[in-house]
């Protein structure tokens, strides 16, 4: 049942479906309207099929279809990457907001001291990254406030804590005191 206008030139021919069984042949009409005609690609002897092959080839239709699909996939990947980036930015903003509110909430109640919070962070990153002097100092104060450290007579270890330049060094110096008493507790 032929439907294609034969005396016009289409502006576009494209596979409609991913199974590549239907082609739409588009003609420009007045007032920015596109009139499309559907051609089923199951009968090469069909009059419309024959007419379509005068305008294009199956290879060209497939090439355009694959190119359009690739462009769509690339765009989706970009959107996905953008969304991931946005999530990371939002997450950082959230943490920053929380930290600031936590700081303002705890100033005064903790004698004006700033405590260090590492929630939801990669522990190895936390241990090895360079921290600010303020954060490092706050951490040392927290360590010294621990009963097991405060009650310890190990002056060498306490000196190491005071001189520590990173989170890892602070913990390494404090570990013998903390773990030693813990092991004693466990053995009791």
């Amino acid at each position, binding site marked *: 049942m032929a439907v294609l206008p034969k005396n016009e030139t289409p502006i*576009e021919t494209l596979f409609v479906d991913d199974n590549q*069984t*239907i082609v739409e042949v588009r003609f420009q009409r007045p*007032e920015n309207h596109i*009139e*499309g005609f*559907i051609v*089923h690609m199951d009968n090469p002897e*069909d009059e419309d099929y024959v007419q379509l092959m005068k305008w294009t080839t199956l290879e060209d239709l497939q090439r355009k279809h694959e190119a*359009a699909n690739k462009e769509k996939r690339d765009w989706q990947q970009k959107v996905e990457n953008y969304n991931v980036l946005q999530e990371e930015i939002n997450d950082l903003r959230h943490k920053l907001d929380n930290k600031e509110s936590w700081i303002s909430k705890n100033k005064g109640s903790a004698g004006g001291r700033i405590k260090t919070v590492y929630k939801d962070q990669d522990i190895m990153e936390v241990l090895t990254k360079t921290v600010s002097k303020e954060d490092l100092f706050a951490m040392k104060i927290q360590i010294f406030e621990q009963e097991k450290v405060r009650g310890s007579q190990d002056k060498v270890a306490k000196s190491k804590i005071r001189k520590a330049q990173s989170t890892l060094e602070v913990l390494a110096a404090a570990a013998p005191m903390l773990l030693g008493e813990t092991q004693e507790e466990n053995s009791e």
Partner: protein
Amino acid sequence: MAVRTPVYWDATLNSGSGGLREMTTAAITAIKTEAAHQYGLNPSVDLSTSSGTLLTTQTDNYRVAGADSTNVSTYVTPGGTGTGSANFSLYQNVESVSAPTFSDKEAPLYWTGTQLQQFSVQDFIDTFIDGAIDILVASSGPGTYYTSGLGSTTLFVDRVYDDARVGSSYVSDDTTQTVTYTEINNTYYLNQYAAGTSLGFTAPAGWDSTNNRIQPLADASFQSLLQEFVRYQAVQSSAGIRYAWSTSAPSGYETVNSRGATIDTQRSGTTQYNQFINGNDYRSRNFPTGGLTTTETITFYVIKL
């Protein structure tokens, strides 16, 4: 309508000697179900997306980006977005099926109260085939059609403007050409329910005029007879099977059942994007954007006339 109760040979009667017995309702239903199965093996009312008697056309309406506007000193309001449309057609093919007749042994027997009587052709239709048509137009009738989002024969494709082709990079392509990128929102397929397998039945007894004796038909022969009758009845303009694909349910028929729907949608919004080409060329274009709104819903129906 003359619905008869056929008799069959029950070998358990008379202490194993056997005898004639009227069929139960369940046994008659089993024959109706077998008739529906036989229709599924060779349907006589068919649908096609490319040839036959036009049943309905659904238009896929989509929007396209408008033409660029260009100005030497500033961005000016571009023309509105455009439209596009393509028609998807469904065709119905009702086969020409000869009126069935009984040959020897084929007509089932029934007990009138005083004697055994052979079914007429109409008795056979009324007793077995009309019920088979009911089974066919109910849900999942073997060999009948439905539409869904899975399949291999495309019935309708709803396309919308591709949201990947929106933005300033699609403004400067060509000031003379409309941007017509579309993407598939949904594809609807035309499917047929499978014939399935025979659930079993008991063939009624018939009169063998060649040997002057009562004898049931062989199962395969009775199955052929059922298929011949049900194919014939399906094409009839009264109590036969037809399909519709329409915005509202057809009225005036014995049974009308929905078998899925196809939905056309379009993007609802418009967004202008600009592209600075150079100090003497400022271009703008309107793109279809935003969520999808339904333009038209067409429901696919199976009908018992």
